[in-house]
C-alpha cells in the first residue's frame, strides 16, 4: 500500500530520486518537525530514507504513527460518502439560490439570490408544512419514547416468553413504510376499517380519519408510533439491562414503591438511551415521506398532513420547481442539523465516538 503512495509521489515529483543523494536533508525534517521531536530523535541517515519516506514519517508524526498506512482503508470510502453527502448538500444549497425550474437541463449559477427562501416564507403551504413537520416530530418522538419505555419496563420484569413478545413488538419496524402504509390505509378505511369498527362498538363515529384535516396528522402519527415504538423499546431495554440489579434492590430496601423506584431511580439513568433514541426517531420522522407517498400513491398527501419532506419532493419532482424544492430541502436539513449537531457534540464529550 505504501508503494502506491510512493509511486504516486514519484509521478508527481519525478526529481525525487535526486534527493536521496542530497546531503542537505536536515532542512526538510526541521520543517516537518513536531513538538515531540527531541534532539536525540534524529536518526542516522539511512540510504533508503528518501523524501517520500520522510514526508510520510513527518505526516505520521503529526497525525499518529499509522496515519498514512491506515488512510487506504478509510479515506476512499470517506471521500465517496463526503461527495454524496456533503458535496450534494453544498450543491443543493447552490441550486436553491438559482431559479432552476422546469425542463432546463442545468441550473444557471451566474445569478444567485435568496428569492426561493422569500418565496417560501410567503407560501402558506410551506408554513403549514413546516408547522406540521414540527408537530409530527415532537408528538411522534415523545409518544414513541413513552410507549417504548413502558414496553421495555414491562418486558424487563423477568417475564416468560420475553423473546416472543420482543419479536412481536419489533416486527413492524422490519416492514417498509410502503407496506405499513397499505395496512393503515385499510385500518383507517371509512366503511370497513378497524378504526371505525372499534369506535363503533362504543357508539362513536364513524370518523373520516384520513379525510378530516384536523385529525389526519394525528392518525398518521399514531401509525408511525405503531411502527417505531418497538425500536424505542429495544433501545430502552439495552439501557435497562445496563443498570446493575443492586439499584433495584437498594430501592426496594429503601422501601420505594415500584412506581417510585422507576421514576426516581431507574428512569433518570436512561438519559443516554432517551437521547440517542430521540435523535434517531426524529430522523425517521423527517423521512416519513415514504409513508405519506404510499398512503395516497402520489406526491400529494392528504390535506392537513403535508410535511416539508413531501412538499420538497412534490415541488421538485411533480411541479419541477427544482430550485424551490432545494430551498425547502435546505430548511429541512437545517432542522435536522439542529438536532444532530448538539447530539454529536454530546456524544463526543462523553467520549462515545
Amino acid at each position: 500500500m505504501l508503494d502506491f503512495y510512493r509511486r504516486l509521489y514519484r509521478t508527481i515529483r519525478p526529481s525525487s530520486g535526486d534527493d536521496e543523494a542530497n546531503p542537505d536533508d536536515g532542512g526538510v525534517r526541521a520543517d516537518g518537525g513536531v513538538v515531540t521531536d527531541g534532539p536525540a530523535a534524529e536518526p542516522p541517515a539511512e540510504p533508503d530514507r528518501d523524501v517520500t519516506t520522510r514526508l510520510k514519517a513527518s505526516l505520521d508524526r503529526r497525525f499518529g504513527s499509522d496515519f498514512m498506512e491506515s488512510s487506504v482503508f478509510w479515506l476512499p470510502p470517506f471521500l465517496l460518502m463526503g461527495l454524496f453527502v456533503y458535496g450534494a448538500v453544498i450543491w443543493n444549497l447552490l441550486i436553491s439560490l438559482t431559479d432552476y425550474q422546469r425542463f432546463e437541463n442545468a441550473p444557471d449559477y451566474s445569478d444567485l439570490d435568496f428569492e426561493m427562501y422569500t418565496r417560501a416564507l410567503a407560501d402558506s403551504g410551506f408554513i403549514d408544512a413546516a408547522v406540521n413537520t414540527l408537530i409530527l416530530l415532537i408528538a411522534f418522538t415523545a409518544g414513541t419514547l413513552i410507549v417504548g419505555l413502558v414496553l421495555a419496563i414491562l418486558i424487563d420484569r423477568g417475564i416468560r416468553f420475553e423473546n416472543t413478545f420482543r419479536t412481536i413488538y419489533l416486527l413492524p419496524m422490519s416492514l417498509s413504510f410502503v407496506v405499513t402504509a397499505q395496512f393503515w390505509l385499510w385500518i383507517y378505511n371509512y366503511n370497513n376499517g378497524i378504526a371505525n369498527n372499534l369506535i363503533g362498538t362504543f357508539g362513536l363515529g364513524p370518523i373520516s380519519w384520513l379525510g378530516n384535516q384536523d385529525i389526519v396528522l394525528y392518525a398518521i402519527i399514531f401509525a408511525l408510533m405503531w411502527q417505531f415504538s418497538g425500536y424505542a423499546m429495544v433501545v430502552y431495554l439495552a439501557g435497562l439491562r445496563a443498570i446493575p440489579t443492586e439499584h433495584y434492590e437498594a430501592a426496594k430496601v429503601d422501601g420505594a414503591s415500584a412506581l417510585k423506584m422507576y421514576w426516581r431511580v431507574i428512569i433518570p439513568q436512561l438519559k443516554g438511551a432517551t437521547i440517542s433514541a430521540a435523535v434517531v426517531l426524529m430522523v425517521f420522522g423527517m423521512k416519513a415521506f415514504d409513508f405519506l407517498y404510499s398512503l395516497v400513491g402520489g406526491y400529494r398527501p392528504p390535506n392537513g398532513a403535508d410535511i416539508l419532506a413531501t412538499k420538497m419532493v412534490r415541488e421538485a419532482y411533480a411541479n419541477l420547481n427544482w430550485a424551490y424544492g432545494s430551498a425547502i430541502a435546505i430548511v429541512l436539513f437545517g432542522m435536522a442539523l439542529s438536532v444532530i449537531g448538539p447530539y454529536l457534540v454530546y456524544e463526543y464529550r462523553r467520549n462515545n465516538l
Partner: protein
Amino acid sequence: MSDTEPRTDGGTMTTTARLRRTLDQTTVEDAGLYVVLIFAAAFYLVPIESGLVTSFKTGTAIIETAPFAPPGASGLTFEKWQAAIDALLRGMGNSLLYAVPATVISAFVGSVTAYGLTIPTWKQSYKAVVLMLIIAGIFIPYQAVLVPLTQFWSQWVQLTQTLSFVWALGVPDDYAGIIELVITHVAYGIPICTLLFRTYYKTMSDEMIESARLDGATLRRVYRRIVLPLSGPMFAVVLIYQFTQIWNDLLFTLVLVSTESSPAAPVVLILAGLGTSLEGQDFALRMAGAFFAALPTLAVYIFFGEEFAEGVAA
C-alpha cells in the same frame, strides 16, 4: 477471549431478569402484567393480521365480514395474490438486483472504513473529526441531496450513454437506474455500516492487535487475517440491517427510476401505486401486494430477529 464471541449474551441476561423477578412476587400483579403484554402484542399484530386475512377476501367478503375476521369459505379467494404476484414479481427481481449487491458492498466498505478508523493508532482528535462527519451522514434527510443527485446522475454521469454497449445486448436502458441505485445506496450506507462495525471493533482486544503488529503483520494483513475473520457476527447484523433498509427504501427508487411502468421498477415503487384505480381502491389486492413485497424482509426478520434487534439498537 470473550470479546470475540457473538455478543448476544443470553446467559447473564436471564440471571439478572430472574433476580429482578424475585423482587416482586405478587402473582396478581403478574397476571395483570401478562394481560397488558398480550394486549400490546395484539395492538402490534392486528394491523398485520387484518391485512393478511383481507388479502384472501373477495370483494363482497371485504364489505360483509369484520376487517380482522377470516374470510370464511364463500369469501375465500387466491385471485388477489395471483394478481399481486403477477404485478410485483418483476419488481421483486429488480429489487434483488440492486439490494443484494448494494448490501454486500456497503457492508464490506463499512467494515474496511471502521477498521481504518478504529484499530490503527493515529491521533484521537483527528479521528473524532472524521467520525463526526461520517456519523452525521447517517442522519441527513435525503431530501437535502435529492436534486443534486438527480443532476449528478442525469447530467453529469449519464450511465444511459456510457453503458450503451450493454443496452446493445438487449438489456433495456432503464436498468441504468439499477446501477445508479447500487452506487447511491452504497454511498449513503457507508455511515451506518461504519458506525456499526466501529462499535464492534472497539470491543476487540488491543493487545491482540498489537501482538499481530509485533508479529510483523502490516495493517492490511492484520485486517485480512485477524479482524475480518473475527467480524462474522457483525457482518450478520450489518447485512441484515442494510438489506432491510435498502429493500424498503422508496425515495431513491422514486427519484432514480421514477416510473412504476419502467421495466427496472423495484417492488416498492410498483406497490405504492398498486390497487389504486378510478373506481376506488382494491384493498385485497393492496394487502396481498404488501405481504408479497414484505416477504424477503419478513423472512430475514423471522430468521435473524436477534441480529436485526442488535442492528437497530446500535
